[in-house]
């Protein structure tokens, strides 16, 4: 397929795809051949790159802190998952549940809640591990080895580097 067979707008429609590297090899070859000959197409490519760069250089915006405060104020007075529209229906379901004795069995967390709790637990323990490691690094190798494993009652003593009770 020869470049000259393509109308001008065929190339114009592919400028952005070319800049993004999204043209397949045959279209790319065709496009690049035309670029060698066509000053105006070269200018369009340069401008497309300029726009691309300018878009990506646009500063990201900070959400005013008032928004968070307002949201927490509003949601703070409602139980999680609460919406007025569903409140009536939820109450009716609750009453029905009591009536059939379902309330005797406590409900477990949803899958999402459980996954979040697991992730939170891992995060917390990672920090605990980090504290153990840092204490070890600062105070001596025996703290790494024992970590937090030595019970207080077994006489965990402050390492020699410790300066008083308070840091």
């Amino acid at each position, binding site marked *: 397929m020869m470049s000259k067979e393509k109308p001008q707008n065929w190339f114009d429609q592919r400028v952005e795809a070319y800049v993004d590297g999204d043209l397949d090899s045959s279209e790319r070859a065709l496009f690049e051949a035309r670029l060698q000959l066509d000053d105006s197409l070269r200018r369009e490519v340069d401008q497309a790159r300029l726009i691309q760069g300018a878009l990506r250089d646009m500063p990201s915006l900070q959400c005013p802190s008032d928004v968070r405060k307002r949201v927490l104020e509003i949601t703070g007075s409602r139980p999680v998952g609460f919406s007025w529209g569903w409140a009536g229906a939820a*109450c009716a379901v*609750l*009453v029905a549940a009591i009536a059939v004795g379902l309330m005797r069995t406590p409900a477990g*967390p949803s899958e999402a809640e459980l996954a979040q709790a697991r992730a939170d637990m891992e995060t917390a323990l990672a920090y*605990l591990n980090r504290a153990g490691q*840092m204490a070890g690094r*600062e*105070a001596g190798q025996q703290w790494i080895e024992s*970590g937090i494993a030595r019970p207080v009652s077994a006489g965990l003593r402050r390492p020699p580097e*410790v300066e008083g009770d308070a840091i």
Partner: protein
Amino acid sequence: MKANTKLTATLTLVMTVLLCGILATPALADDRLKSQPGYVDFGDLTELGGAEPSVEISLGGAMLGFVSAAARDAEPELADALGKLRSIRISVFEIGPESMDEARVRADSVSRKLEADDWEPAVVVRSADTSVRMYMKTVGGKVAGMAVMMIEPGSDAVFMNIVGEIDPAQLGQVASQFGVDITDLN
């Protein structure tokens, strides 16, 4: 009409009682936790040096029980370690040089309170780079609570409290499995 009014009044009463019950449950659980010997009151941790916590976690006994149960088959040691815990709370603040002093003052204040309440300092380390304090509360020969405060200049200030029956060796071993890069957690 009268019957309708009566029905409405009854339903309103039922709903009020139910809602009171629902709303009161977290508050009661909160009170129960605070009465535990291993509980630590770190004071107001909603901000430090004007910044909100970058990590804020509070897992209660019920949720830890569910996590423990879910881990029972694949990770029995983790399940055991979590099984007797009543709560894990942690607040982490990203701190710069300007908030170092405030973090230290906060940690000093909590340390004084803990020592006054017979918490035993397990690790108290100070160096130019970092400070780590771990306290444990023992009741009847068993560890009932752990408090960890860690300050890394230019990085994080960490305040952590674990409440419940703790086997430090087991918990340490389990924690080492989660020794991921903390910087990825935020």
